[in-house]
Structures are given as structure tokens and as C-alpha cells.
């Protein structure tokens, strides 16, 4: 356990599209982080804290699992 490669993926790009092409800056403001952080999360380079993850989900009005997925390879 713990030796398998696990990855947190997300659907932020799709959710932004469905939210009327919400800008990264607008999402950043709603989530209380910088636009660079949203870019890094969207590209899968950075996994946010649980608090920021919930704030992002709330910004889209969807449950957390719809934004972030945990996959074991």
C-alpha cells in the first residue's frame, strides 16, 4: 500500500467551459488563490489543500468528486 503511483486529476477546464467559459482569474478570486495556482491545479502540477478544493467545487456548485478524482495507476 502506498507504493502504487496515485494521481489526482481534475475536470476544472470542462467545468469552467460549462460555467459560461469562466476565466481562471474569476475562479481564482472565488477560490481565494492566485491565477497561477489555478493554472497549476488545472494542469495537474499542483494538488490543492482540501479547503481550496472545496472552495473550487463550491465555485462551480458541484460536489468535490466531480471536480477532483483520485486514480491509482
Amino acid at each position, binding site marked *: 500500500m502506498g507504493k502504487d503511483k496515485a494521481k489526482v486529476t481534475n475536470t476544472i477546464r470542462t467545468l469552467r467551459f460549462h460555467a459560461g467559459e469562466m476565466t481562471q482569474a474569476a475562479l481564482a478570486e472565488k477560490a*481565494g488563490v492566485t491565477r497561477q*495556482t489555478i493554472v*497549476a491545479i488545472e494542469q495537474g502540477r499542483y494538488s490543492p*489543500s482540501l479547503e*481550496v478544493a472545496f472552495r473550487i467545487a463550491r465555485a462551480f456548485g458541484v460536489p468535490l468528486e466531480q471536480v477532483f478524482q483520485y486514480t491509482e495507476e
Partner: protein
Amino acid sequence: MSMKEISALAMVVGSVVISIWVAMDLNGGGAAPDVSGAAWDMIWAIGYVVVINIIIVIIATIIVSIAQREEVKDERSDERDKLINGRAMGAAYFVLSVSILGVLFWQAFGLAPNLVPYALFGVSMLAGVAFAITQLVLYRVN
């Protein structure tokens, strides 16, 4: 490129430029004859680093803003910035510790007292560059 990356880049460039200038001055026989004189020289050098950093940040901000067609603004630090800062601090602390140990050994083996301020200046520049480079790398990969 964000304001934080520009600041880190300015720190690297400023430190390297002033360090080369100090090294060339030393190489040309410009070392102060006593510890007090050398210390004052290095205090001035640190002042120059601060000034050159400010100038580089202003110029780089204008250039990047034009290139990105969007004004580069400093944003409030968030959790990712704090994480990156923490890791960069760790790298800088490691470099600082090893460098200070090196200076102590160098002194133990006969480093002239009037050169100690130069060595301390070099150590501080090394740690600063380690901090800034770690930030730049982590902002790209994290």
C-alpha cells in the same frame, strides 16, 4: 510570468552581477587592508544588490507586461506560494549552513581576517541565489 517569479529572477541576476563585480575588484587587488574597511565595502555591496534588484524588477515588470499584453501585478500569497517559499527556504538554509561551515574551515586553515567579510558576502549571495533559483524551478514544476 508572475511578479513573484520576476522578483526571484531579479534576485538571481542582481546577486550574480554584484558578486562578479566584487570578485573582479578583489582579483584586481582591491581588497580592503583591514576587517572594518572590508566590512564597509560589503555593506555597500549589499546596498547595491538591493538597488539593482529594484531596477531589474521595474524593467522586467514593464517588459513582461508588454510581452504578455497584461499588467503584471503582485498578488497576495496563497498556499502554493507559501509551500514554494518554505521549500526554497529549506534549500537556502542548507546552502547557508554548508557555506558557513566552509568559511569556518577556510578560516581555520588561515583565511586572512580582512577577507572574512568578503566570504560572508559570498555566503549570503549564494544562499539568496539558492532561494531564488529553487523558487523559479518550483514555480515551473509545481
